[in-house]
């Protein structure tokens, strides 16, 4: 598997660290209800098909990436910089 980092170009999967689903981008406020924290930390859609998840370009530019890919075929259809989404 190879990911196309927006900054570094196409790189081997070994350069990246996998964190988990896109849910990690939606951190609740510190005083949010426990159910919200439960959903953020634990509950997942876990689709068999297209998903969006977070990868870190550990051995490259050290950017967090939001990757759109298919969990059944391993096809990768998009890679965005998390920093740009937030901006």
């Amino acid at each position, binding site marked *: 598997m190879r990911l196309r980092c927006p900054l570094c170009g196409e790189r081997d999967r070994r350069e990246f660290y996998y964190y988990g689903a896109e849910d990690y981008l939606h951190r609740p406020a510190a005083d949010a209800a426990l159910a919200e924290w439960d959903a953020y*930390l*634990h509950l997942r859609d*876990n689709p068999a098909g297209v998903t969006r998840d977070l990868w870190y370009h550990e051995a490259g530019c050290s950017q967090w990436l939001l990757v759109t890919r298919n969990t059944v075929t391993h096809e990768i259809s998009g890679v965005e910089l998390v920093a740009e989404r937030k901006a």
Partner: protein
Amino acid sequence: MRYSGLRVITEGLFGNRGWTPAWREPSPKAEYDVVIIGGGGHGLSTAYYLAKNHGITNVAVLEKGYLGGGNVGRNTTIVRANYFLPGNSEFYSHSLKLWEGLEAELNYNVMHSQRGLINLFHSDGQRDAFVRRGNAMINQGDDAILLDREGVREHLPYLDFDNTRFPIYGGLLHPRGGSARHDAVAWGYARGADKRGVDLIQNCEVTGIDIENGVVKGVQTTRGAIRAKKVGIVVAGRSSQVAAMAGMRLPIESHVLQAFVTEGLKPVINHVVSFGMGHFYISQSDKGGLVFGGDLDFYASYAARGNLPMVEHVMEAGMTLMPMIGRAKVLRSWGGIMDMSPDGSPIIDRTHVEGLYLNCGWNYGGFKAVPASGWCMAHLMATDQPHEVARKFRLDRFATGHLLDEEGTGSQHNLH
């Protein structure tokens, strides 16, 4: 038909014409008392113990493919009771006891072999952690023996003891640990359940769960609608999809785990051995193949095949630990889809829907759990009460903070 040595000999004398199929191939009935979704190890053992322990025999197991085609036929067959946390400890201890009587119970040769499991350690800190684990095992009534370096050498003389980066300090020996024949476990439970009247229905995918006013009424399948008073979801890597049919969002992420087998060799590895510095464990099957594996591929996946980096990691770790295996040729590798939970421990519980029960979150250690999981799931479905040894496997423990994080790695699904 009862299996016995005498039967094998007699059949051999008369051209093996007397064998009959191990189970029927029934068409689904319109209604059952209990429907189990998923014909893997856990689904089959649940059906078996519903019939055997609770006298509930109007049961169907619905399997979308063929019996044993999922993880139960893809795993590396390690059976052990070396857990640490209260909650896990008593459950796996119960499971190992069931394993020890399983062949007589099922009248089926599951080739359970208690050849001993040795977990190696490579530093003082790791030794301390294993001493603690060993004490927990002994407190639970199971067996554990701490081996120093020379003790390990007596059992496993072929290891590279002087590896400069990862010298071997010792190992924790679990003499009752070992392996079993994975397919045989599925087939043995299937045959036993069928004999007690359970309908095993293959090529029958569940596509919907019928719920009225918060009560389960049955399932929709590729072979028509089936009514049921109670429904159990026991589908391992596919848990999120099936639970979604009942409007649930689970604390599960599915990941691929690979395994490997070499060509058949003469007996050389008598134990189950695990490396403490990099994920690698190995045993030798009765056919002679070295069966080994390592860690997840680490990214969520439903493809029953993995990627090259983990293949390399496993091979490198194996070569570091026991260079002698370098000459063996790898014949096959494959993957299975693991239902990873955020604390690495399973769920056996009721759901918000009356009559709907959930069994999932086996991570990559669910084979050894097959007997106890079925035992406890059957107890739960029959009595509506959790079984004593599975009472901590609650679905709400993530929300309430009562986690069972055996490895202490936090809530990230792929780190367990």
